[in-house]
């Protein structure tokens, strides 16, 4: 008899959507998330194109459903260690890292942050803000329960064994330093991979001056910079506190290196312009693009609208960023081969989407192949765009390749559909 349970790896929009559909169908779902919170990348966005909807408002109800649905068992700070067996009878080992804060007891009051003596970079905020060794990544994060970072917690990393500032501050006996990582054994009938994407590390592309010139930001940094629940509470300021007056947004960063177009950068870059125009009407904004990729029935209209708002769109052949006596400049060859430069006090890099951090190791553990771009490959040549080569293992969202939100959600729903139809 087939095992009807499903393992979903990754709790971004794709993973959540699939879990909810499977859960509603009455299927037992094990939802595995590497991080301490659910929602993936989308919850980092303030608004999404083309309707400028508030991402949090869109996602929060789904996150709540995930936390409340009794068919969905959520494993945070967890990763897949091993997968054996075949469709209908997979045996999966999960490594669940210690959170040191009890999900059951903690009520998310945040009393424990303040007393913690350690302050470190908040990677969720792209290092744009500090956090304590015990913290939630951002206000409104779900579940609203902090995590202790064992590398940096003085007690756990042994630098100050007696420290228990957080424990003393907690009235709910939620802190448990002795919590240990666990290995869990699960049995499932099908597996869905929804591990999402990462962004190309632009440090490896020196021509863009990232971390050299002072106000070069990645797209993801900028998303947080303008998020109302982000490090500056949505105030748009440069690292020196100044408001930018001229902004360059560079598309296709790393496209030629990666050998594919990420499909979404043109639109989200245009979204940035829309936002900048609104916040700083007098600002000069220039989008540097190659071929504009704006498919979708409403996208061109949005692009036209931004164009009419007086944002410059310049086609470039090659481009680089330099900083001369404190001034950053974009030096480029335009579509007709003429050289030119643009002085900018803020530069945003729309970098290629790449496979999520643990893709390669995960592929190995599960034993399925990646395509030559490093994403999980489906049997699309057999017109089966969510099924991997292994029976019973499916992939959805950006784990399969760069995609926008509706694309990821549709693919997740599709995977859920296929799973439901093979499990019935």
């Amino acid at each position, binding site marked *: 008899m087939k095992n009807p349970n499903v393992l979903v790896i990754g709790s971004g929009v794709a993973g959540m959507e699939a879990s909810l559909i499977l859960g509603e169908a009455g299927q037992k779902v094990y939802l595995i998330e590497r991080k301490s919170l659910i929602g993936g990348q989308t919850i980092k966005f303030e608004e999404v194109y083309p309707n400028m909807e508030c991402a949090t408002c869109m996602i929060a109800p789904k996150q709540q459903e995930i936390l409340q649905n009794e068919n969905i068992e959520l494993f945070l700070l967890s990763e897949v260690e091993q997968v054996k067996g075949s469709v209908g009878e997979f045996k999966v080992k999960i490594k669940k890292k210690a959170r040191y804060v009890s999900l059951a007891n903690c009520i998310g009051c945040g009393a424990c942050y303040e007393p913690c003596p350690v302050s470190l970079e908040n990677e969720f905020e792209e290092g744009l803000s500090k956090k304590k060794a015990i913290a939630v990544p951002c206000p*409104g994060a779900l579940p609203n329960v902090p995590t202790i970072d064992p590398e940096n917690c003085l007690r756990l990393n042994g630098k100050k064994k007696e420290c228990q500032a957080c424990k003393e501050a907690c009235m709910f006996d939620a802190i448990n330093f002795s919590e240990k990582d666990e290995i869990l054994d699960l049995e499932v009938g099908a597996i869905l991979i929804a591990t999402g994407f990462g962004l190309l590390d632009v440090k490896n592309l020196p021509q863009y001056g990232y971390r050299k010139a002072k106000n070069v930001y990645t797209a993801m940094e900028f998303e947080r910079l303008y998020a109302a629940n982000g490090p500056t509470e949505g105030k748009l300021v440069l690292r020196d506190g100044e408001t930018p007056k001229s902004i360059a947004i560079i598309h296709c960063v790393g496209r030629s290196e990666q050998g594919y177009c990420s499909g979404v950068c043109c639109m989200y870059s245009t979204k940035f312009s829309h936002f900048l125009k609104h916040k700083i009407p007098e600002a000069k904004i220039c989008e540097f693009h190659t071929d504009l990729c704006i498919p979708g029935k409403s996208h061109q209209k949005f692009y036209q609208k931004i164009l009419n708002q007086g944002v410059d769109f310049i086609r470039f052949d090659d481009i680089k960023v330099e900083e001369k006596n404190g001034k950053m400049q974009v030096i480029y060859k335009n579509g007709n081969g003429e050289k030119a430069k643009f002085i900018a006090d803020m530069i945003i890099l729309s970098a290629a989407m790449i496979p999520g951090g643990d893709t390669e190791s995960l592929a190995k553990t599960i034993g399925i192949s990646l395509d030559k771009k490093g994403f999980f490959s489906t049997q699309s040549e057999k017109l089966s765009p969510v099924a991997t080569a292994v029976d019973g293992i499916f992939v959805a969202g950006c784990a399969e390749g760069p995609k926008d939100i509706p694309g990821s959600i549709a693919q997740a729903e599709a995977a859920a559909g296929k799973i439901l139809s093979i499990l019935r």
Partner: protein
Amino acid sequence: MKQDFKPNLVGFLCNWCSYAGADLAGSSKLEVKPYLSVIRVICSSRVNSNLVLNAFLWGADGVLIAGCHPGDCHYEKGNYYVRRRFALLKKILETLDLEPDRLQLSWISASEGKRYAEVVNKFAEDITRLGPSAFHTNPNI
């Protein structure tokens, strides 16, 4: 300016965006003036003149209606309808010079805890400046 005056404010907040925004203001421990009594409605489009006028007549010094930003409505179109109803009510108060500033419509999203605090505090200041509404102090009404 009446310093000692503590206005009575009623706020109709939609469940999906604005009420969540208010919660976020709370969990972010933002200071909010203690004058606004929040009434949760499922969608801002549930609110109409029947509710608002009664609030005024029964003693509100100000009424706030808050919902999802246009386009974000959990029910797609609700806030567009309430915006029209509101515009009408506002125009009536303007024409009769009945202190239209006591009535306010704000779009507050689930991530805008800070905005919620700002909107409410600003509203509270403005109304404090206006003083108590004659609607409920004037015995002839």
